């Protein structure tokens, strides 16, 4: 995969870890990034607060340059990403506006390509399977609150790759790295963005609410894909603690830092030692939960190559399915009654599945994962068989 890369202003400065870890993530996953030539600032919130045309033209210049390369664009910063998606949307849906934008930037631009965010890229384009296969140091024992913030998932007409209220993309990626993610109500709440600078009386309260909710939900760290969220939750955490007289001491990570580290990078390589809230020790001292078997921290280190994100749960399901298959094979007459009440139809099912390993495996799997679906599949087998018999 090859993508045009738009680092944006933060990834070279306040969000330097995001820049480093995005490049490492791309290298690990075999994605080639080609930086957009002579890119400019997207204008961010200040742009659309001030002049609508300017707020579309600044992103459009970058997108028009990228369009010539024929590549989709990767914009890791959530704010840049949001501005790019808004511009693509405007150009695609408003011809008059498109002409104005083209006149202002003095370039042609037809929004023929898409801008991707990091969570969208990881969860939907690269895929969980590929990520799992690269994990060499699963983050077992990590309890993370995945924080999407506002700009990645809203408005859905512009973004559209995840739910605006309860998104899952970051959660499944972080789970694939071996960590546990918590359910929490502040996933897509706003961190206050630039209000922390311009109106700290308002912004600090918004930061406080996010930190407190993550902690209450049992999270020991927060994962983000936005440099502004990072700045507010990390750099301003101490000040927020002071103002509200409450200790959090909760490390914040970019999702790309976690990916690189779980795939073998040292935290230092991706800049995790540059955070304001100490974030290296938590990762180094992770201990897997002692369930279902007692594992010492050393035994977890001894088997680092087992890419076992969510592996324990998978194992449990597999064991249950195997047990069901055995039961169906040994005693079909009894097992079918779990699926069909009518004894006559149940009898037909028993005849149909006896000796048919495929059908038994399917019913066994469904019975473990979704009982209703298993019952429906069983009924379908019987109906099909009865129709076949009628024809004969």
């Amino acid at each position: 995969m090859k993508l045009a890369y738009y680092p944006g202003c933060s990834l070279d400065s306040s969000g330097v870890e995001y820049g480093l870890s995005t490049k490492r993530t791309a290298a690990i996953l075999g994605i080639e990034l080609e930086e957009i030539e002579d890119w400019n600032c997207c204008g961010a919130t200040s742009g659309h607060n001030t002049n609508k045309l300017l707020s579309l033209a600044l992103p459009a210049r970058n997108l028009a340059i990228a369009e010539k390369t024929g590549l989709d664009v990767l914009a890791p910063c959530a704010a840049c990403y949001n501005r790019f998606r808004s511009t693509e949307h405007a150009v695609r849906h408003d011809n008059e506006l498109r002409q104005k934008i083209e006149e202002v930037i003095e370039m042609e631009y037809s929004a023929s390509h898409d801008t991707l965010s990091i969570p969208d890229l990881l969860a939907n384009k690269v895929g969980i399977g590929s990520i799992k296969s690269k994990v060499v140091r699963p983050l077992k024992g990590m309890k993370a609150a995945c924080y999407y913030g506002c700009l990645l998932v809203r408005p859905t007409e512009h973004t559209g790759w995840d739910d605006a209220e309860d998104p899952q993309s970051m959660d499944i990626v972080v789970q694939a790295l071996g960590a546990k993610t918590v359910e929490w109500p502040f996933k897509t709440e706003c961190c206050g963005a630039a209000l922390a600078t311009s109106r700290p009386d308002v912004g600090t309260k918004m930061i406080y609410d996010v930190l407190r909710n993550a902690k209450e939900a049992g999270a020991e760290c927060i994962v983000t894909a936005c440099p502004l969220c990072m700045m507010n939750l990390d750099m301003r955490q101490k000040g927020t603690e002071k103002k509200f007289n409450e200790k959090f001491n909760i490390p914040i990570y970019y999702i790309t830092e976690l990916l690189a580290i779980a795939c073998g990078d040292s935290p230092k390589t991706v800049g995790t030692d540059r955070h304001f809230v100490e974030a290296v020790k938590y990762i180094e001292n992770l201990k897997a939960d002692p369930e279902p078997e007692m594992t010492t921290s050393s035994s977890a280190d001894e088997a680092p190559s087992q890419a076992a994100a969510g592996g324990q749960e998978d194992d449990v399901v597999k064991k249950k399915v195997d047990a069901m298959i055995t039961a169906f094979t040994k005693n079909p007459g009894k097992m079918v009654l779990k699926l069909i009440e009518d004894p006559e139809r149940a009898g037909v099912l028993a005849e149909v599945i006896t000796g048919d390993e495929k059908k038994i495996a399917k019913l066994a799997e469904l019975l473990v994962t979704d009982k209703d679906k298993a019952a429906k599949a069983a009924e379908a087998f019987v109906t099909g068989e009865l129709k076949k018999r009628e024809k004969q």
Partner: protein
Amino acid sequence: MGNAVKLSPSSDSQKALISRLEKEAGTNINLCYQCGKCTAGCPAAFAMDYPPRQVIRLLQLGLVDEALSTESVWICASCETCSSRCPRGVDIASLMDAVRREALRQNKVTDKKVAAFNKAFLNGVKMFGRTYEAGLLVQYNTATGQFLKDAELGLPMFLRGKVGILPEKIKGRDAIKKIFEKAQEKGVE
């Protein structure tokens, strides 16, 4: 009818301004039935003088000057929660944006700090093509008279390699200047 207030009908110019704001925002304020879902979900409503629902109500009643002078439009963080939850499909965030820009045009800015931040931010972009974070903070602090604001963060940021002393400049600075000028010119749709 005991408590009813008789409002004077809005003038033609007020009506025209409101429809222009609606057009710019790409939304229709008359769809709003004042359920308050936007306000219930707004993470900044606690600090607003008029929460989002009331800003729309002001516009529905033709009280456009009042809407332009609310502090709320400057406290709104553009998080889009309101727009994504509105059961009537009103794009409240976009409307807030349009009202904010109009307040700027009419020089009716209630919250000078947010406007000063935006100005400092865009000045940097216009000059260098990219954000110049160090310069932004200095300019913002000077403009608002808060000389030591966030000063305690400056050195730690520098030591972590998170802030450059010199701005990053792009080659196409002339193109950027032109974009600013042309956008200003064509400004209002």
